[in-house]
């Protein structure tokens, strides 16, 4: 049974939560503490699996409570439940909290969030991943991308936004962190921040600059960047470019194109995540994929080894971070051709095809289920044109 600690100096809030959560007594053991100092003591015993804390409290604030939780049990899920989160405290907050939920938060929403975060882990690998995810401050950032984004932030105001978007479309690590930060400012996954443009505007260039220069977006040291990692990053960037190119040639609406790009970038976070967590395993898995490309897809191989596909792993991280729910759902199923919407070519369809095209090895065709999907869409005849786009994008990029 998962153990949740609630901290709020307003006892009425705690009693309200206690009453609505009583019905979930068989899943969770909840403790409600009105005095933050006492809460720190309980956290010190390593008791809670999750801490949900108010932000503004006398003497000890929510950041301090969650910081203690992070220090004593990095794998503990940490949430802020508050009526207000100023951008002033955003960086220290992001260093300790996974997500922020605004008051008032309806009971069923809170339950949904907690259920997702505390889902009992069946397989050993998956449980380990969850543990890793909760301890993760941010994904490794490629130094080139970090420089690109820094430069973009310094661009003239008229072209800044476009340049920032462009730089972010090649960096899953920084994109997901920015969506997490924007969600915190907006207070909660109930609203979330669905578009990257909205997130950029919500945070503003100064906050973004501070964020990417914080520990959560530290560029990876050059010595740790081997060929596999270069390849992972290159393929991710290529998939994004292909998604954008397909959206352009298919004359999609701007918001469809933007979401297709966002989904592709975000799903790239999963590959980076699995590689960062189990680097050697991931390298050998990729080698296996080279030889077995015809029989098994990469997501299948990932599931075999790690219990989750990279896209699913990414989705877990994003749920923990409170990133816009519907977007995360689409990321989770991105690799699964059977789960793509039919009828018209939508953002996730474009992202799926783009990723499949980039993964395609020379001499092999598109994976059968992706091909089936295109048949269902009635867009098989577009495939040769898209393959050309993918070829253009797969030119090795000078690093």
């Amino acid at each position, binding site marked *: 049974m998962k153990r949740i600690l609630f901290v709020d100096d*307003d006892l*009425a*809030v705690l*009693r*309200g*939560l206690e*009453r*609505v959560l*009583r*019905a979930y007594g068989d899943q969770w053991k909840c403790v409600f503490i009105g005095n933050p100092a006492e809460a720190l003591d309980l956290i010190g015993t390593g008791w809670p699996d999750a801490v949900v804390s108010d932000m503004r409290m006398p003497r000890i604030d929510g950041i301090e409570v969650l910081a203690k939780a992070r220090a004593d049990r990095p794998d503990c899920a940490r949430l802020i*439940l508050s*009526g*207000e989160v100023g951008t002033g405290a955003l960086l220290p907050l992001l260093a300790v909290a996974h997500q922020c939920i*605004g*008051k*008032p*938060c*309806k*009971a*069923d929403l809170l339950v949904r969030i907690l259920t997702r975060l505390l889902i009992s882990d069946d397989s050993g690998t998956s449980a380990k991943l969850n543990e890793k995810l909760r301890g993760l401050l941010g994904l490794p950032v490629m130094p080139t991308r970090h420089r690109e984004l820094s430069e973009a932030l310094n661009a*003239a*105001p*008229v072209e800044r936004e476009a340049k920032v978007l462009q730089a972010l479309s090649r960096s899953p690590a920084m994109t997901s962190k920015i969506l997490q930060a924007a969600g915190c400012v907006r207070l909660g996954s109930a609203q979330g921040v669905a578009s990257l*443009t*909205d997130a950029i*505007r919500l945070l*503003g260039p100064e906050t973004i600059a501070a964020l990417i220069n914080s520990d959560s977006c530290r560029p990876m040291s050059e010595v740790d960047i081997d060929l596999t990692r270069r390849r992972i990053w290159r393929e991710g960037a290529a998939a994004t470019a292909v998604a954008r190119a397909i959206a352009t040639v298919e004359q999609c*609406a*701007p*918001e469809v194109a933007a979401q297709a790009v966002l989904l592709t970038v975000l799903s790239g976070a999963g590959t980076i995540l699995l590689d960062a967590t189990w680097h050697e395993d991931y390298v050998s898995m990729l080698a296996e994929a080279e030889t077995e490309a015809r029989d098994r897809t990469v997501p299948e191989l990932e599931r075999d080894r790690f219990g989750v596909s990279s896209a699913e792993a990414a989705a877990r991280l994003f749920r923990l971070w409170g990133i816009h729910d519907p977007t995360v759902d689409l990321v989770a199923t991105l690799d699964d051709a059977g789960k793509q919407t039919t009828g018209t070519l939508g953002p996730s369809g474009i992202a799926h095809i783009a990723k499949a095209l980039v993964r395609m090895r020379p001499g092999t065709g598109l994976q059968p289920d992706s091909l089936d999907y295109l048949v269902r869409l009635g867009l098989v005849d577009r495939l040769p044109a898209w393959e050309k786009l993918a070829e253009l994008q797969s030119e090795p990029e000078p690093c």
Partner: protein
Amino acid sequence: MKPMTAPCAGMPTACLDTLDGLPDAIMVLNHTEAVTHLNRQARMLLCRDDAVAPPVPIWHFVAPASRAEIREITRNTLSAAECPYPETTFEVTLRRSDASTFLAEMAVGRLPAPQALLAASFRDITARKDSEARMVRLLSDAHESRQRVESLAAETIAQAEALAASESRLSMVLHSVRDGYWDWDVRNKVVHSNPQFAEILGLDAPNGPLLSPDAITALVIDADRADMAAALRRHLRGQTQNLIHECRVSRKDGTLAWIEFRGQVISRDSRGRALRATGLITDISEKKQLDQERRRTMKMEAIGELAAGVAHEINTPLQFVGDNLAFLQSQTARATKAFQLVADIRTQVSASPLWRVLGGDLLAAADEADLSYARNEIPEAIREALDGLDRVSKIVQALKEFSHQGPSERVAVDLNRMIENTVTLTRNEWKYVAEIETDLEPGLPHVHCVPHECGQLLVNLVVNAAHAIRAMADGKKGLLTIVSRAVAGQVEIRVSDTGCGIPPEIRNRIFDPFFTTKPIGQGTGQGLALAQATVKRHRGTISFQSEIGRGTVFSVRLPIDAIGTGDETDLVR
């Protein structure tokens, strides 16, 4: 020939007679500087009858002032080595026998004789000297007077020029300034003024610069007239140093203007009664508007801060009210099952002996709790309470977003969201008079603007539209529509109402500050003026189309990317 008398020794008498025929007066002196002979001319000049013999010392013939000079000349001449001819003349004052004097020009020479003799020739130059002096005096007078005249003329010209310049300057100033100039002849009840005076007050000035004071005070709006009159009275009585007074005047064209009167009484009669007062008037409407805007901005900022704080404070109770209601909801749902069971059992056991004993109490208790009604109504009540809570949450959220708008700087703003918040927050203004419909373009580009100004703009347009519908007073609910569209680099927001419309005759004035069609005290006349000012600051446009009895559509267009084009200084207030 008879020898010369002693004094004229060495000088033949014939020579002496000859001397009488000469036109010049000549006196002969011996070596002792005594005059031994005077010729006829000399005798005439010196008024002597005799030709002088025995010798007479020369100083007899010389005025005391010239004696030293004469002596020096005669001595020099006597002692000279050669016989010099008189080369130079000198002026001496000679003395007549009657002791009168005259100015004479004299030349002295030595005669070549065994005994030194001097001959001094002289003539009366008084007349010449006089005329000379007169001439000199005349000349100098003339010169002086010319100078005087010239300087006088120059002075006059300078004065005239200065006068002309200052006059023209003054008139230039008076004609070119925005201020109105007034010069009030208090006793004769006439006000002189420059053209701006009448213009500022919106007066027809058929008499040119002459106005009647009553015509002026009649323009001051009723609410301000007593104050104005009091200020004027105090100053005329000398109770105030200066007249400085602000008041509103109603112009002939119906516009309202804030005017500042400044002036002073500049002359009084012996009893201290004001005779004349002058001063300026200034149209300070713009300043007043800016003041009001600034005050409003400050007020909005203060309210914003307050509202954000209040919203935060409300959110906490909203949290536990919601939780408690949710708890009650789930508990009642379960309790309802239990009640149902009790009801079922009751029908089954109603015949049993035990029920006959205990059932009465249970039924009474159930009746007292109105249980059958409560069973249906409690869940309904909770559901409605939760709905209400939802609405409160939305309002608080809107208020928070609307007020949590930070400093007066431009940021990217989602106008669709702002429109939705505006609709939520202005509900009280329109809910009884209109239905509201929004047609917002999905994915509307964000607009760089000052959020609280744009929020205020939207509120003003919506409230105005609601008031236009209310003014129909036909008891029917109108329709208020808000549309947002992206149009060529701009975002257009149209606020339409099915209200009374704007009469054509006031269409050109609705954006004027202080112009209002509402009764005094109900409208500040600032709403649309502020709206226009906001739109201008954002380099946008505002326009409207109106049809009497059908309604009005206000269209605001704001450039999407105002970055770098906006004049940031006008935002720093």
